[in-house]
């Protein structure tokens, strides 16, 4: 009866609620608000409990609160007369007078005990708190004159602006829009071609097409998984004293990426993380998803003291309860560990109920069911082989129409074979002898990997600088150490060879005697050389530099060897299928070599690219489109997409197979949960059983759970309670997060706290509207993204207006798109993407940009002060230990994942300026720009090159004034300072 009808509650800026009240109601409210924090509960101050009339009469240490015969006698009256309470800020005269009147009129209490959580007061949230109430259906505000097609959400925003007499901003220009939406969705800016395509697309849904393309891009999951990992305090080391790395925790990260990319319904997404092992028991992914439960810190140094151990366990439970409450419900349940929540209607008992729900969860390594994976992997590979065949079939049509290509004369090889025709060297007249099972067929030189080798007659001249080239298809990817083409002395003591998977599985390597000239190229592992022919070349330069190429492109990165080997005339041969003599099993290759050549010089990148294009396995996109009909083109595209999907699946599966365990939650028999007085392990109270947080509008199915329920039962009940449609917090919290990441601010500005200490929604009706639509869409995050991004509100320009700034400096009402600095990882990824060679490798164990040192059981992480190709993967794959020195990323507010970071700070400091201006990352990337853009050097004029840089980094051409300044800078100092400066501009670093 104290709970006022909801429709009478209105929001005031101070969070006060005002409702229709009788004088007695008002008196109760004054008491709840001012007295009950101390004078209620198990141990009321001074023994005086004001929560029932009976206890008021009974009184405390200083006598009765009111006397039974005369309500105007007793502590209550005295305190009011003397203005003594509350101690720090006694009641004001109006409230004191009201209470005195209430005493006079009989000091009436409601029939039941007043609940301190019942109503919201000026000091705390009650059960009527806005976020705990059911979702409200509000009709759209009236239409607003606008030429742009409006999304429903625009009506709410524009209505809000109208009320504050603010005007929405103009539509942003297209270049700004595409840059914005790329950085927002995938964390990297668009390539110039993508910008041009969008600028040229005059269709009304041009922007929609871009959005759909981005949502379909695998990079969407990579970018948005980062947000999720921030929220769930995901870290890849234990924290605390030892801070040991968790080498198998990345499975969870990969699972999040995949789930987001596949638009897994959000309720399922959450259920899998809390209780996947039960609710989705048939899916091997559920174990990966449950990495969530153990993503936090874990104290591994417990000492021998039992209390200390229990303390550490309770700390861990707080971490988990905190993460569950904040992540999915926006409730800081954890604040009720030692006492009832000071601000929200969550009792200490509620907290321990939540502990009981989760107390069976332990940290550890869990095996991934191998049989399932192997089966899945085989299926994937079979389908992939089929698709490759189909693809070959289509491409053959185009090839046939094209006819034979003319070989341009780059450089004359010293030997040249086309094994599909014969075994004759058409250049140098070396004779070739086939041994063992080696045979020539229409496919080429077939080698069985058991005893097949082909050897040439001796070279007629010394061979120093050289290029080895071959086109090869392998029988399988599991083989190790076979050579494709080799130059060697006849005894095999000196050799250079294109070797497959000797030191690193499925990777190419420049083999040499005792690895004298061998280092890792750090290239990508093969995933198709067993399905279709691949063109390979390794060049050995005079200065000892060794470079590998795969299908015309640099494979990994080149390296400097100790120096060139000299293969003496008359005593050296060319061999196929063998790494070096003698032909023992692990030197031999299983596969078919189609063609091969040897040059006596190190060809450059352009030459190799030409060799590849003329190698008959290459067919340009242009040739294809002109020689195929539309149907064939579409079919081919579809096949290619499916292959790409299968490849990422396959990779994930092989990783799972290789890494047979995953860091995840171990389910154990839950021990009894004790209520801990003051949160002290030394003061256990009565046992507490599983249960929910009383969201008044929603009780859920906790009533059915038995006190001795198993761990999966408890988690299943919890997961289903959290994700139930009737739980108003569930949709509100995630919708607000998505909004927060799109606009830089949430409708509720504290994304993980929807309680009293959090901020109120600026647009409560809009939040509910979006939440309802989100539920109706089947919890589709991608549809939610789409509806937000296609809104007029999202597409506003970012220019400030003095008038609007005055009224709404923080742009909480969205009168513009507020510019914001990119987050640390987007800065890193954008820089690499625009200036370097972006390594697209998805999934699997991450890369580490740390110097990791282990000293007597403790691990230390300091930044690796260098930058190379192996580090140029998307930042989501960065190894993320806790409490590490992150170098550059630290200065851009990349959080330490020791605790959740639902909202990152965005600082600007001189240390940041120094790090990005002077640090090795920017310096190396600036210098490598021309090397990484193959079309750059060929441009005719400096102006064209300047345009190139502007187009790639800023997605626009330089203004005239900028052009002249850039020209002066470049002419004096070259391009490096230009690129370094542009990387540091506000424009590059800001999302506008």
């Amino acid at each position, binding site marked *: 009866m104290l709970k006022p009808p909801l429709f009478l509650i209105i929001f005031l800026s101070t969070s006060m609620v005002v409702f229709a009240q009788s004088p007695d109601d008002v008196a109760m409210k004054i008491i709840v608000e001012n007295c009950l924090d101390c004078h209620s509960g198990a141990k009321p101050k001074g023994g005086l409990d004001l929560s029932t009339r009976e206890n008021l009469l009974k009184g405390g240490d200083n006598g009765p609160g009111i006397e039974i015969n005369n309500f105007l006698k007793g502590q209550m009256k005295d305190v009011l007369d003397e203005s003594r309470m509350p101690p720090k800020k006694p009641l004001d005269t109006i409230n004191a007078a009201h209470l005195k009147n209430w005493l006079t009129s009989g000091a009436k209490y409601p029939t039941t005990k007043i609940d301190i959580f019942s109503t919201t007061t000026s000091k705390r949230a009650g059960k009527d708190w806005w976020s705990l109430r059911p979702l409200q259906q509000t009709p759209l505000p009236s239409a607003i004159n606008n030429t742009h097609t409006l999304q429903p959400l625009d009506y709410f925003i524009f209505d809000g602006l109208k009320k504050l007499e603010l005007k929405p901003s103009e539509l942003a220009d297209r270049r700004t829009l595409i840059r914005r939406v790329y950085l927002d969705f995938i964390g990297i800016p668009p390539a110039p071609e993508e910008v041009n395509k969008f600028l040229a697309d005059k269709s009304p849904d041009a922007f929609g097409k871009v959005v759909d393309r981005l949502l379909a891009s695998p990079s969407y999951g990579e970018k948005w998984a980062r947000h999720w990992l921030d929220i769930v305090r995901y870290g890849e080391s234990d924290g605390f004293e030892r801070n040991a790395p968790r080498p198998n925790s990345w499975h969870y990260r990969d699972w999040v990426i995949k789930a987001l990319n596949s638009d897994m319904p959000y309720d399922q997404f959450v259920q899998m993380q809390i209780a996947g092992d039960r609710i989705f028991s048939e899916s091997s992914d559920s174990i990966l998803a449950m990495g969530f439960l153990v993503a936090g810190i874990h104290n591994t140094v417990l000492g021998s003291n039992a209390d200390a151990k229990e303390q550490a366990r309770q700390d861990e439970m707080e971490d988990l309860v905190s993460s569950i409450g904040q992540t999915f419900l926006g409730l800081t349940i954890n604040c009720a560990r030692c006492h009832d929540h000071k601000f929200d209607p969550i009792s200490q008992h509620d907290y321990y109920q939540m502990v009981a729900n989760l107390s069976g969860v332990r940290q550890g390594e869990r095996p991934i069911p191998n049989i399932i994976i192997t089966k899945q992997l085989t299926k994937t590979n079979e389908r992939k082989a089929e698709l490759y065949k189909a693809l070959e079939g289509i491409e053959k049509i185009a090839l046939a129409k094209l006819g034979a290509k003319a070989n341009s004369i780059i450089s004359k090889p010293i030997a040249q074979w086309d094994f599909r025709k014969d075994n004759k060297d058409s250049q140098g007249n070396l004779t070739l002898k086939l041994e063992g099972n080696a045979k020539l067929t229409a496919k080429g030189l077939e080698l069985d990997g058991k005893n097949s080798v082909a050897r040439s007659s001796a070279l007629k001249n010394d061979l120093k600088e050289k290029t080895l080239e071959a086109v090869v298809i392998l029988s399988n990817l599991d083989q190790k150490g076979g050579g494709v083409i080799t130059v060697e002395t006849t005894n095999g003591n000196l050799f250079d060879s294109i070797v497959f998977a000797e030191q690193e599985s499925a990777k190419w390597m420049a083999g040499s005697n005792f690895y004298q000239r061998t280092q890792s190229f750090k290239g990508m592992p093969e995933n198709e050389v067993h399905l279709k022919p691949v063109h390979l070349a390794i060049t050995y330069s005079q200065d000892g530099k060794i470079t590998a190429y795969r299908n015309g492109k640099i494979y990994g990165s080149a390296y400097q060897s100790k120096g060139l080997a000299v293969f003496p005339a008359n005593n050296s041969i060319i061999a196929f299928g063998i790494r070096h003599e003698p032909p023992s099993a692990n030197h031999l290759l299983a596969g078919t070599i189609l063609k091969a050549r040897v040059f006596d010089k190190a060809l450059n990148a352009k030459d190799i690219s030409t060799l590849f294009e003329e190698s008959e396995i290459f067919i340009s996109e242009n040739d294809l489109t002109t020689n195929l009909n539309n149907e064939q083109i579409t079919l081919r595209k579809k096949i290619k997409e499916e292959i790409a999907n299968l490849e990422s699946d396959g990779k994930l599966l092989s990783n799972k197979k290789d890494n047979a365990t995953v860091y995840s939650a171990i389910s154990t028999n839950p021990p009894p949960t004790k209520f801990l007085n003051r949160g002290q392990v030394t003061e256990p109270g009565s046992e507490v059983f599983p249960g929910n947080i009383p969201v008044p509008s929603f009780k859920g199915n906790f009533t059915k759970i038995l006190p001795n329920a198993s761990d999966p039962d408890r988690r299943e009940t919890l997961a289903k309670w959290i994700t139930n449609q009737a739980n108003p917090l569930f949709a509100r919290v995630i919708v607000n997060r998505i909004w927060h990441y799109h606009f830089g601010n949430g409708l509720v500005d504290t994304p993980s706290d929807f309680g009293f200490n959090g*901020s109120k929604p600026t647009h409560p009706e809009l939040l509910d509207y979006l939440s309802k639509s989100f539920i109706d869409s089947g919890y589709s995050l991608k549809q939610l993204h789409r509806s937000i991004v296609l809104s007029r509100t999202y597409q506003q320009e970012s220019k400030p207006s003095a008038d609007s700034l005055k009224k709404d400096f923080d742009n909480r009402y969205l009168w513009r798109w507020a510019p914001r600095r990119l987050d640390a990882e987007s800065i890193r990824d954008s820089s690499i993407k625009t200036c370097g060679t972006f390594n697209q490798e998805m999934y699997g164990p991450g890369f580490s940009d740390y110097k990791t040192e282990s000293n007597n059981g403790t691990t230390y992480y300091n930044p690796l002060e260098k930058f190379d190709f192996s580090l140029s993967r998307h930042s989501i794959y960065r190894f993320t230990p806790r409490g590490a020195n992150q170098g550059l990323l630290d200065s851009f507010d990349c959080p330490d994942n020791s605790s959740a970071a639902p909202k990152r*700070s965005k600082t600007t*400091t001189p240390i*940041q*300026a120094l790090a990005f201006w002077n640090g090795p990352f920017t310096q190396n990337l600036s210098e490598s720009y021309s090397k990484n853009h193959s079309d750059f050097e060929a441009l005719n004029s400096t102006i064209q090159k300047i345009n190139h840089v502007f187009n790639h980094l800023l997605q626009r051409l330089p203004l005239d*004034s900028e052009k002249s300044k850039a020209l002066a800078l470049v002419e004096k100092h070259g391009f490096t300072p230009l690129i370094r400066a542009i990387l540091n501009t506000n424009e590059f670093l800001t999302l506008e």
Partner: protein
Amino acid sequence: MYHSFNNRRSFLCNGSQSIAITALASILGQKSLANDIKPKDNSKKIRAKRVVQISLVGGLSHLDSFDYKPEIEKFHGKKLLTDKVPDTFFNQVGLIRKNDWEFKQRGKSGLYISDLFPNIAKCADDLTIIRSMVSDSANHTPALFIENSGFNSNGFPSMGSWISYGLGSENANLPVFIVLPDGRGEPNGCASNWSNGFLPANHQGVIFQSGNQPLKNLYPAITRNIDEEKDSLDFLNQLNASHLSGFPGDTNLAARIKSHEMAAKLQLSVPEATTISNEPMHIQNLYGINQPETSVCAQKCLLARRLLERGVRFVQIYSGGPIAGRPRASWDAHENVKENHSTEALKIDQPVAALILDLKQRGMLEDTLVLFTTEFGRTPFAQSSSTTIGTGRDHNKYAFSVVMAGAGLKSGTTYGESDPIGWKVATNPVAWHDFHATVLHILGIDHEQLTFYHNGIQRRLTNVHGNIIHNILA
């Protein structure tokens, strides 16, 4: 500094008349919160403006330095009288061992200080010794975290960061909070010890190293000629200026432009501040720059004084590197206190004493707080078999000593007591929260008012604890 949390700083900015200017100052961390967090009681004043902390990593034996226990002699070679096996890190409880250094009364105050620190002992009349410190952990890493941030795990802001957040900068051309690690490496937990935690990144402790590049990234990673450097910066500024003209009044963009100017100033101010060779020879000699044993710490102490002089708020000097490894590179004297502490003390005794003297002779000790701390103490019983008096001592979180000097303190005094053998605190226990509350108080900050909203809680350096130790205040 820019963020939109509900914290008092953004509240201040947004409530201000001249929003742009205030916000800009705030973004760059120059603005002080001092007015907002001053203790409400006006009788309390700002006693110190800056702090220098010498942090001894590994655990200084209070029994051999600042906690005189004349009665321990009686117990030497005896068993600890207790019904419960003491909980120690290595669980090797040997017989009680008396102090290895002789204690003497020093100065006019007559404070007992041992011969382990003969030079620091000469400053006795300027010192305030707390002999009743307790910690929640006897493990190095969590104990270091508690010493620095009040919490036993990483992720919480350190005291220096809180002070930076609370008081801002007095010299925009130098960082607010500077850390000088031991030359032998960073302590356990590394950067977490001077982390800004969830406070904005501009409050992070910034490491100054010795060598040509005292501050990381002060100069380009690849050497550039001066001309190129200047032209590149000019070009950057031109692009930024023309970009900003499209965003009049945007304080964040303006702040980044300003941050480059400040970075350029750092390139001048850092070398100026760190060139200790500019100091007169008698000052260099005072610190012991030219003696091999003291040289490293002397350079840090002298550098600290120069930084404090130039307006840096908080300088933290570490004595001791990583805990693990042999020979010991810290105060963690499990094997042999005499050997270990002699070596370590020799490195720092003269420089630290010189720092106090030097601050004093410049009048700076009046508004500078000097802290000489360690994460925990050592046991009165040896770390050895139960029947021998071994030469080493194990960790002791139940009682240890820290030393303070300078602004706002009653000098030449002690506070609190441990039991007759220094195993546990007997009177006036001081937890790190109390210590932190007191330091903030001396700086004129109410520790209950210095808060930052994080994940549902207005976080404090002192969590929900902290009692100011009024008895040590002048």
